[in-house]
């Protein structure tokens, strides 16, 4: 196979042999792809960097392709502060959840858009939640925070079934048998708002965060997302700083 003119982002790369790189790419045409890249010794090409749109050429029959020709199509998306840790988070999600060679054009577009807006302050949480939701549903991993067209029942109690990835509701008398992996006591108004990405409703983002996280952890079989921790640790450092500033 030789395929050229492929739009790609680097999700992850590792050194390979003396001068090469093993690269995990998110491509528009093929979804996630693994390839080996050996930069030419003569001319210095663009750096094989994440958060940068490339046009590439792929060769090879096997699952591991050879990456030839690497052109950066735009200026690199320079992320700093919180945005760069959020970028790692997006990359880790895609790296670990996307199957190889399954095109997801819509998701690719959403990823490219989100990267370019990541540095714009504000609404980072909302954008991350929307991307998580899109990713899960694109991959058929299910995330239904509110059944379409369903009415709110005043006397029902609402829960999220983590294994099924959807909201369930009980009648007036909640079952006493509590299944594991069910998050209970959810507010239907917040679930509805989160389902339609109406983040102006106070608390909707927080609910989405908890439920998305539980679902992603379940899909990843509990193996922690290192980048989520890093993002959290970075934000905590910022909070310590804010608290200590007035005293100085």
């Amino acid at each position, binding site marked *: 196979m030789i395929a050229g003119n492929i739009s790609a982002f680097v*999700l*992850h790369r*590792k*050194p390979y*042999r*003396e001068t090469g790189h093993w690269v995990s790419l998110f491509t528009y045409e093929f979804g996630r792809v693994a390839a080996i890249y050996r930069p030419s010794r003569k001319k*210095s*090409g*663009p*750096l094989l*960097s*994440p*958060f940068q749109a490339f046009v590439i050429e792929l060769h090879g029959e096997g699952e591991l392709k050879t990456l030839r020709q690497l052109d950066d199509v735009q*200026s*690199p998306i320079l*992320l*700093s*502060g919180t945005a*760069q*840790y959020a*970028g*790692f*988070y997006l*990359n*880790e999600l895609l*790296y670990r959840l996307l199957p190889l060679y399954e095109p997801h054009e819509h998701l690719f577009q959403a990823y490219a858009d989100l990267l370019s807006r990541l540095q714009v302050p504000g609404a980072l949480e909302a954008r991350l939640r929307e991307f998580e939701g899109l990713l899960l549903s694109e991959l058929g991993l299910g995330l239904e925070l509110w059944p379409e067209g369903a009415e709110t029942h005043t006397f029902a109690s609402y829960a999220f079934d983590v294994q099924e990835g959807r909201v369930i509701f009980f009648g007036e008398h909640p079952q006493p048998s509590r299944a594991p992996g069910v998050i209970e006591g959810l507010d239907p108004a917040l679930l509805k708002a989160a389902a339609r990405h109406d983040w102006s409703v106070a608390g909707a983002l927080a609910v989405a965060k908890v439920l998305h996280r539980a679902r992603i952890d379940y899909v990843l079989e509990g193996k922690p*997302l*290192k*980048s989520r*921790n*890093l993002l959290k*640790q*970075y934000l905590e*450092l*910022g909070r*310590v*700083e804010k608290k*200590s500033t007035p005293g*100085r």
Partner: protein
Amino acid sequence: MAELSPSIEHLIHCLRGLPGVGPKSAQRMALDLLERTPERAARLAEALQTALNKVQRCTQCQNLCESAVCELCADPCRDASQLCVVESPLDVMAIEQSGAFKGGYFVLKGRLSPLDGLGPDEIGLPRLAQRLDQGNVGELILATSSTVEGEATAEFIVQMAKPHGIAVSRLARGIPLGGELGLVDRHTLSHALNGRKAF
């Protein structure tokens, strides 16, 4: 091809995956050591064992050394209030060879790379936090690589240093000496422009 004996296979397995060593080179190395230069193989085994026994991380800077505190940290002529943070012992060597720096070092165990499982704990940032808490560091010079991971590491340290009111600077990046602008890639050029200095 006939099978190699289990110990040879094991040796090959241990060699491959070393930086720059693929399956073929690992095979050649193992057979060469055993077949042609057994004395060298014995010396290699001994050298490895000795290094493993003696080499440790400096309790101050995490550099590899053979005592609790490395020579650089123990040197009274160096300005310990100035701390240059690097990603590996090789970087210390490079900066030392330049002769341009007379402060102390802090050697990280790599750089933050969550997709490789490397977070703040794995690269030894808690030890740096202790050094900052002790209060005798007045200036940090961040010399992590100019990859996105190196940048993320630098910014994390900037955040760690803020409550201490320590001056932090980042190694300047730009045009190589004798380099012509036309030959510099645009990433380097944009960094060089961003980091320009007033005359």
